[in-house]
């Protein structure tokens, strides 16, 4: 269901359709997801539409983005340091 929601909002029946689960079981799963803050849903008329909570999605990807930034910056400092060393050697 989360995989489906990653592609965009969907109604409960759309989410249930490919699953071999009863509708009440699907509703129960969705409630657990909503309670955990992974998804949110809103009801318009008789259709409940679910969508991923964007902040939650971002946190997993953000972790890797942070690691990349750390890794890049560390090597920026490394290169700066190497260039300083080289200058010092040339002057020595």
């Amino acid at each position, binding site marked *: 269901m989360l995989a489906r929601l990653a592609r965009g909002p969907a109604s409960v029946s759309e989410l249930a359709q490919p699953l071999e689960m009863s509708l009440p079981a699907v509703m129960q799963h969705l409630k657990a997801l909503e309670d955990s*803050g992974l998804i949110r849903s809103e009801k318009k008329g008789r259709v409940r539409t679910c969508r991923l909570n964007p902040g939650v999605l971002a*946190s997993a990807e953000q*972790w890797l983005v942070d690691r*990349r930034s750390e890794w*890049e910056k*560390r090597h920026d*400092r490394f290169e700066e340091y*190497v260039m300083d*060393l080289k200058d010092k050697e040339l002057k020595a």
Partner: protein
Amino acid sequence: MTDKLDLVLERTIDAPIDLVWAAYTNPEHLKRWFAPRPYEITECELDPRPGGIFRIRMQGPDGFDTGHGNPGCVLEVVEGKKLAWTSALAPQYRPAEMASEGCESFPMTAIVTFEDLGNGKTAYKAVALHANEADKEKHEQMGFNEGWGTVAGQLEEFAQSLRANA
């Protein structure tokens, strides 16, 4: 072998390979660039041979201090060409304890290779390998606990689909 959780950085630097190698593997040099300012590496041990220690102590003006630091393990050294180390192991390949939070809380392996390009230039490639910590982090941020097996199972499936679509 490249996974979505691997970070690869390839650069060329206008300095001779001896200097680049020394700056990367000599603890006195490494201290000077490893930590983001204003944090400082106040202690550094790097024994460049398989099973050797790699340990840093990082301190900051805000009182941040890793203390003694969890020592990692050097995995492979080819003089002037390759350095690999990991935080998943302690020296002499003993499985490491991870800190409960911060930069020593997740295992990582770094593999850095160097190539002499001639004319006093060096190419190097630094690869950081991570375990599936992004998912772990995500679980933690959402306050997951073991009782939520169903949700965790779906999350796993979701993470795999993200990876498949990437």
